[in-house]
């Protein structure tokens, strides 16, 4: 049961990452690999602050700001310096590796003793479910820390998704969406598309860094390697989410992305339980995303070929 709860919680945390990837990859069609550095950057900044005794909430805000800075730099490299999208992301991601090491001072920071979101969640759990260390959920013994963590992560993600959806409906938010949809049109309506893209990538990477910070606090350490493969992970969640809701309405897609992230994490947990070698995880994720990207087009062209053959026979 704690495996199940843990998978759900990590799925929720990483849904913030998925929302960030949704913003860059789907809204702007920008394959932003900065994500891999931002995850760690957020984790590093918040971990260091926590060790200094800073309030966990404040450390999360700082993590968001750090990610936003990284995203903005990628945006500036791409729009103002005309560097290719992928290369701009790679440059910032590579630079962040050193920055992260400097921020952390070593490659791994344990957070077991620090007062973190986990501590807050524990007291929330105690407040919600009483003072005992374990509670009974649908016949399962659940530790109060796990339960409190799940509830608080759910609250954080729900709040983030709500704010994002509201933002997408403001004047600024619609201008950002239009920038991804048709830059020529929105430029002709007086919007500086460069600024919109920089801002959008800042928000995207802010969310991703927030996910990194929460992940570090949940698992109890920040590691300089923790960002590897994260962009593809987020992409997989977005793709699963789109398949789940089967619509491109913004509200549904955002909800779907969150569900996709949780579902994906659950599937991974089950596969690991069944004996999947953890070393193969990233390979399988990459193959999955590849299949999801190429599958629909290939299916369509196969169907077309079939159609041509049949029409050929009638002639």
């Amino acid at each position, binding site marked *: 049961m704690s495996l199940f709860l843990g998978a759900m919680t990590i799925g929720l945390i990483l849904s913030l990452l998925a929302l960030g990837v949704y913003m860059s990859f789907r809204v702007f069609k920008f394959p932003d690999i900065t994500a891999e550095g931002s995850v760690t950057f957020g984790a590093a900044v918040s971990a260091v602050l926590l060790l200094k005794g800073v309030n966990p909430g404040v450390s999360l805000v700082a993590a968001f700001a750090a990610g936003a800075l990284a995203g903005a730099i990628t945006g500036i490299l791409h729009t103002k310096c005309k560097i290719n999208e992928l290369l701009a992301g790679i440059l910032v991601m590579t630079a962040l590796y050193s920055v992260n090491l400097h921020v952390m001072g070593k490659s791994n920071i344990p957070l077991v003793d620090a007062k973190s979101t986990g501590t807050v969640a524990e007291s929330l759990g105690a407040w919600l479910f009483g003072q005992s260390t374990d509670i009974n959920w649908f016949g399962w013994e659940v530790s109060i820390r796990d339960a409190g963590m799940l509830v608080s992560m759910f609250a954080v993600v729900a709040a983030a998704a709500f704010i994002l959806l509201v933002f997408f409906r403001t004047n600024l938010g619609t201008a950002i969406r239009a920038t991804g949809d048709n830059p020529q049109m929105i430029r002709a309506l007086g919007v500086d598309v460069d600024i919109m893209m920089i801002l959008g990538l800042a928000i995207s990477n802010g969310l991703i860094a927030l996910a990194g910070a929460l992940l570090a606090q949940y698992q109890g350490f920040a590691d300089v390697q923790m960002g590897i493969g994260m962009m593809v992970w987020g992409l997989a969640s977005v793709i699963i989410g789109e398949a789940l809701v089967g619509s*491109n309405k913004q509200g549904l897609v955002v909800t779907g992305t969150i569900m996709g992230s949780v579902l994906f994490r659950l599937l991974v947990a089950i596969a690991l339980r069944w004996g999947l070698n953890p070393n193969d995880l990233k390979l399988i994720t990459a193959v999955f995303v590849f299949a999801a990207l190429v599958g629909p087009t290939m299916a369509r062209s196969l169907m077309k070929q079939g159609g041509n053959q049949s029409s050929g026979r009638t002639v």
Partner: protein
Amino acid sequence: MLEITNIHKTFHPGSINEVFALQDVSLTLSEGDFLIIIGTNGSGKSTLLNAVAGSFITDQGKISLSGQDITKWPEHKRASLIGRVFQNPFSGTAPTMTIAENLSLAARRGKPRGFGWALDKQLQSELRDRIRTLNMGLEDRLGNAIGSLSGGQRQALTLLMASWLKPDLLLLDEHTAALDPKSADQVIRLTKEIVEKDRLTTLMVTHSMQQAVHLGNRIIMMHKGQILHDFKGASRQGIRSEDLLHRFEEVRRREQVDVRVAELLQRMYV
């Protein structure tokens, strides 16, 4: 109102693909003028429009609009004065966003965009009323993605968007060229209505002589990056499409002569 003074633009200067797209073009429009630009392919009609819109910065010369020197303004800044409709019906609207959202973007053309609701109640009722005037039944489909509409409908909406906040200058770049004849007629009728209602100063590029003689109060004909003919006032009165076609024929014949003379000279002297 609009004052274009001696502008030049050369694309790919110094290479084999060098194109003298605009050569010393000057043009002055007064408020309420409706200018039609005609010309052969590659004559610089669209380039002139793009120079005014700010798609590129001109090499030389000056452009001023409503008393402001906009020569060095970037495109998005000029948009506060200029409304624009493109040739491609897909260019003027954001396909995955709804009809209402697209119009709400146009309702803030050139204004700062902050955290206010894009679609407040007042704007929603206003845009329903104004879309109703298009007579396309779109007022009941405000929540539909604009990508699901036909080219004609999208172009009509783009026109409405470009003129939503009365622009100092309206630019129409062959905006019916990609439409079927019926939709083109509809869009031209709408263009006439909108321009006349608000007395908008307008620059319109077209390939249709029909449109050229029936719309506007002045026609210029461009050729090789220069203004070849300028029909205004008395010379614009009573002009027929045959007259314009005749001028095109003249240009064509002169070009042929040029080629023949060049060959002759080559044979004689080279």
